[in-house]
């Protein structure tokens, strides 16, 4: 019996700390350091955010969701680009998660090293879909890259490689 107990004790101690943290209710909510701010925006408010960078930075808008596999694969690329061009590029992440998953967004981004302000799609869905881009059917992820003058230099739906992101960002930074 003691032998069994010792084995169990060793197994418990061997469980990595990160897994324990993920399984513990409330662990994430108490640690708020570097949790990115996630702000609800309707279409007009999002446009104001993008416009605020006109003349200062190029903008990479990415519509994503926590459950969207292809979107999550892109997050490291977007983080890398933001870190490479902090003064020239602003990556604007817009979560399209269901309202019931809204609270997951900030801790999810924190775990992946995103520490800047991000956004959550609110307001009228159809208005968002119709106004954001003629080329966007609504499939996730969706990316739009805008240069400092406000010109769209690239947009696509579906996932992309780091090279594709970088190529269009470089194009936007040339202007």
């Amino acid at each position, binding site marked *: 019996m003691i032998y069994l107990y010792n084995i169990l004790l060793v197994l418990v101690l061997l469980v990595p700390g990160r897994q324990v943290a993920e399984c513990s209710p409330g662990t994430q909510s108490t640690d708020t350091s570097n949790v990115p701010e996630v702000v609800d925006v309707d279409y007009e408010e999002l446009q104001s955010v993008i416009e605020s960078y006109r003349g200062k930075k190029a903008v990479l808008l990415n519509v994503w*969701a926590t*459950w*969207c*596999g*292809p979107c999550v694969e892109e997050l490291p690329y977007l983080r890398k680009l933001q870190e490479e061009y902090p003064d020239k590029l602003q990556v604007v992440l817009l979560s*399209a998660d*269901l*309202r019931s*998953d809204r609270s997951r967004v900030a801790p999810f981004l924190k775990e992946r090293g995103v520490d800047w302000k991000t956004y959550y799609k609110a307001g009228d*869905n*159809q208005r968002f*879909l*119709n106004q954001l881009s003629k*080329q*966007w*059917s*609504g*499939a*996730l*992820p969706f990316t739009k890259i805008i240069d400092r003058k406000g010109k*769209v*230099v*690239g*947009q*696509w*739906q*579906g*996932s992309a490689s780091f090279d594709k992101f970088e*190529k*269009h960002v470089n*194009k936007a930074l040339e202007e």
Partner: protein
Amino acid sequence: MKAYRFLMVVAVLTLFVGIGWVSSGLNANEDPIEPLVIGAKAPMVDLKVRSVSGDEFSLQQIAESNGLLVMFSCNTCPYVKAWEDRYPEIYNLSIKNDIGMIALNPNEAYRNKGDGFSDMKKRAGEKKYKFPYALDRHHKLADAFGATRTPEVFLFNKNMKLVYHGAIDDNYESAENVQKPYLKNAIKNLAAGKKIDPSSTKSLGCSIKRGE
């Protein structure tokens, strides 16, 4: 002299091809998938697809006297889950109006991640699907339709011409708060011989997992 001219022509052509190649890589709109346009004939209507019942159907066989509703759907998308409880009502409305309905799962890259045939059978049983839920193997139909996401609907008339494409309605979060039941209106108007407006709408959806 002739050799010089030939070399000049080759050089100029190479330059144009090169410019074209570079610029094509930087087009502002990079989405190559073009959906069927309103009025287009349903493609690949004789292709047989395997339903979770084990039966094989073609789109032509599913169509009823007033037309056909094709819904690209899957097991793994939260938007599908949000809209899915409205599927039975849509099916009942379709059948009542002599329009056949089929759901197709085109997620080839997710067959081992929840969108396999056995997963589909389980889902159809749990949700009590009364309509065929079939594998779109290698996303052949999704490609032919130019479908980009799940859920995404295509409604055809009795001549198998597209009359409505896009969203189920304007509110995936809440069936009670739907203000514009696009698809239901399109079904009713199709059966009544009335104009369908809007004939094309957008909707949030999960990109179809075509894979490489």
